[in-house]
């Protein structure tokens, strides 16, 4: 809203641009600053991740840099990772999904509750309900044209309420009986790697393929880049958006299911603030918060980075765990500010391209 007041110096190019346009077919050559900014945007998270790992390894030695600890980090990352894959699609598509934390809790509760009736129910019930709520999100946003944040904020409240309702206001913690197949999802390993990690890796791979190699992924990217242009080019906007939120809901449900399987219980209080962590991971990974560009690989780096930092905070020990929340908040702000700066350097944001409010 304030961008309309942004003065001159925005859309005009550096010294190179006037010559470059004249060269007709070759088009405008990216300046070095733009290229650097682009690389930073795409690979910044990976660079920081490696740097943090190296520094932490030097400082903490074997306490940090051990196979066991790395496997722990991977496992801790897998739940956030699943949610973040869904969030990556939503944000690239120009939206936001604030309901994922509540959906994760609801799913965990439903999985544990459903496990009384067998593993099939324990798996199907949470996925069905979370998928349904994701679908409602999509319909409210794409069909009823409500602002994404308000619709998903309402389902955040609704899902949390449902989780409490099912668990007798949080007083009942359902447990998954030992020996059920569903427990295996959280506790067994494949080739020494925990199943949640395997599942998350599979989802990352599928998400990467879907985003980069499928028509759907291209449609999501196009809609986030310019919804008007996409409509004029004949893309089925509403359908693509509904699918986006449906998948986000399903993945949050899957994450909750795995959390329940891992801990053999479903608690209604988990996952508070998870939406912010997911958004932070996605944005750290180079996905534009304004939509239209981003990558699953970046999100992976972002998720790992957040978890490595959490791990380090735990290593320090003297820092209270609440610092994680402070760090997430500060991180998000810093990353968004850096991203705005980088976007401007690359001239991704032009004067007329500023995403409005609801």
């Amino acid at each position, binding site marked *: 809203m304030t961008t309309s*007041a*942004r*003065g*001159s*110096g*925005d*859309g*005009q190019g550096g010294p190179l641009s*006037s010559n*470059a*346009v*004249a*060269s*007709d*077919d*070759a*088009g*405008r*050559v*990216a300046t070095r600053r733009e290229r650097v900014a682009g690389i930073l945007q795409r690979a910044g998270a990976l660079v920081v991740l490696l740097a943090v790992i190296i520094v932490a390894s030097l400082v903490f030695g074997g306490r940090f840099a051990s196979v066991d600890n790395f496997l722990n980090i991977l496992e801790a990352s897998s739940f956030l990772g699943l949610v973040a894959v869904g969030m990556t699609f939503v944000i690239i598509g120009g939206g936001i999904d604030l309901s994922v934390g509540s959906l994760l809790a609801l799913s965990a509760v439903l999985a544990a509750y459903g496990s009384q009736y067998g593993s099939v129910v324990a798996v199907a019930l949470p996925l069905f309900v979370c998928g349904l709520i994701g679908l409602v999100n999509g319909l409210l946003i794409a069909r009823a044209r409500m602002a994404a944040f308000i619709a998903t904020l309402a389902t955040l409240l609704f899902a949390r309420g449902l989780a409490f309702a099912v668990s007798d206001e949080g007083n009942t913690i359902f447990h998954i009986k030992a020996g059920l197949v569903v427990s295996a999802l959280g506790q067994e390993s494949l080739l020494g790697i925990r199943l949640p990690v395997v599942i998350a890796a599979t989802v990352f791979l599928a998400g990467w*393929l879907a985003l980069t*190699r*499928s*028509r759907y992924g*291209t*449609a999501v*990217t*196009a809609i986030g*880049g*310019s919804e*008007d*242009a*996409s*409509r*004029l*080019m*004949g*893309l089925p906007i509403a359908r693509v958006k509904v699918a986006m939120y449906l998948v986000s809901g399903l993945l949050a449900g899957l994450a909750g299911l795995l959390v329940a399987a891992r801990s053999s219980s479903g608690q209604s209080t988990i996952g508070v603030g998870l939406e912010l962590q997911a958004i932070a991971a996605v944005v750290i990974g180079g996905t534009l918060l304004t939509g*239209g*560009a981003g990558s699953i690989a970046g999100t992976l780096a972002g998720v790992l980075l957040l978890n490595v930092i959490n791990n380090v905070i735990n290593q320090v020990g003297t820092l209270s765990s609440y610092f994680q929340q402070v760090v997430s908040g500060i991180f998000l702000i810093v990353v968004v500010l850096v991203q705005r700066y980088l976007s401007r350097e690359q*001239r*991704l944001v032009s*004067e007329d391209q500023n995403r409005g409010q609801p």
Partner: protein
Amino acid sequence: MTTTTGGLPVLCVRDVSKRFGGVLALDGVSLELRSGEVHALVGENGAGKSTLIKILTGVYQPDEGQIIYRDAAVTFARPRDAQAAGISTIYQEVNLVPLLSVARNLFLGHEPTNRLGLIDFAQMHRDAQLVLARYGIDVDVRRPLRQLGLGVQQMVAIARAVSADHRVVIMDEPTSSLEAREVERLLEVVDVLRRDGVAVVYVSHRLEEVFRLCDRVTVLRDGRRIHTGPLANITRLDLVSRMLGRKVSDVERARTRFNEHDTTRAAEPILRATGLTRRHVLDHVSVDTRPGEVVGLAGLLGSGRSETAKAIYGAQPLDEGTVEVNGTPLRGGSPRAAIAAGLALIPEDRKAEGIIPMLSVRDNIVLAALPALSRAGIVSERGQDAVVDRLMSRLKIKASGPDQRVGELSGGNQQKVLLARVLCLNPRVLVLDDPTRGIDVGAKAEIQALISDLAAQGMAVILISSELEEVVEGSDTIVVLRDGAVVGKLGGNDVSEDGVMRLIAVAARETDVPTPHQAERDDHGVR
């Protein structure tokens, strides 16, 4: 220029009308497109061009009349339907996704896939290269579209639009943001389309292009078709006069004719805008105004007249140029600073940039003058009501009262509210961008009379209008703009509709030929 008038009719629009709220945007318009012709569609603000295009492309549906496409009546419920039928559109602003690669933009929605359903990039890139080669474009199709020049982007849009089996291509001011060389290339491409038997609708306000490229022309004005015919049979001046039109309300005019002002009494300009420049938009435009003088900015739509107005007011980013009020340079990019220096603007787009529809008449009127009407941030109700009452009765604003929401008023009364807003400021320089656009005759006459009054009281006025008659009758001096540059300045007895139209219609290369009026050209005005 091609004189053939094409082949068989492909698309016929019959007596189409379209109404928005109380406004009739199209009034029984007909249009016939033949295969292999380039058909120009021209008209000024509010003529109905964009409404007609949006009906052809399925964005709007007509209220009355029908569309016959390939010998059958059709209705396009949405853009996809029109595209599927073979009608595609190239918009003024390139309507592709800048962040996606060239190839992805070309094939968005129908990418070639392999057996697994995944996009076959090798195939897609080969195909993209081939498609573009048809138009003589050789670029790396994997690069993001935004890295290419606008001309190439426009070409990609065309390639996308006609790569399938398209029979009709609509081009809505496709050259408005292109460099001269890029324009050349685009015109060649249009020629290719014509040879392929495609019917092209070409919307442009650049007369050179229209005359060079198009076979026939349809002129729209105020939602009605004024003229259709081969371009070979019409002169440039004739076309301009048909576009600008002459109002039939001569009776009204006689009563509201502006007074002649005595501009010699103040020799020093109060406002001096020098060398206003913005790439693709303004090219060293200079305008001066003296107290009591009305300076008209004339030119067709897209000539840079509105941009000049906004640049003076600090609301248009500039690459170069200065604005001085009373010899003091104005800080650029700040309407607040402009207001403080005694400038006031009524913007062209009343709804988007002028009124605040949900607020009351009172709040809209005093918005800009609040600092003067308040002490310690608290608004003086009495002072405010006095100002509002005075202006509402002076401007004869018809509202149920000062509490009525501005969004509920008629266009004419909304415009009067905006006038009241700027008058509260007691400005020294008033910039009016098309102040009587789309409002009823009565309100129009009142506003014209008011402008005249204000100038007589010593206010300097810059006046823009989409009606040439209004500028000519209301102005003491007229600065004529074309393609973002000043092409001439008329003063005193030279101010005439004929003189302005001649300057607008003159072809680019003819501007060097001296005419009597051009002797007065501002040194900074022409490069």
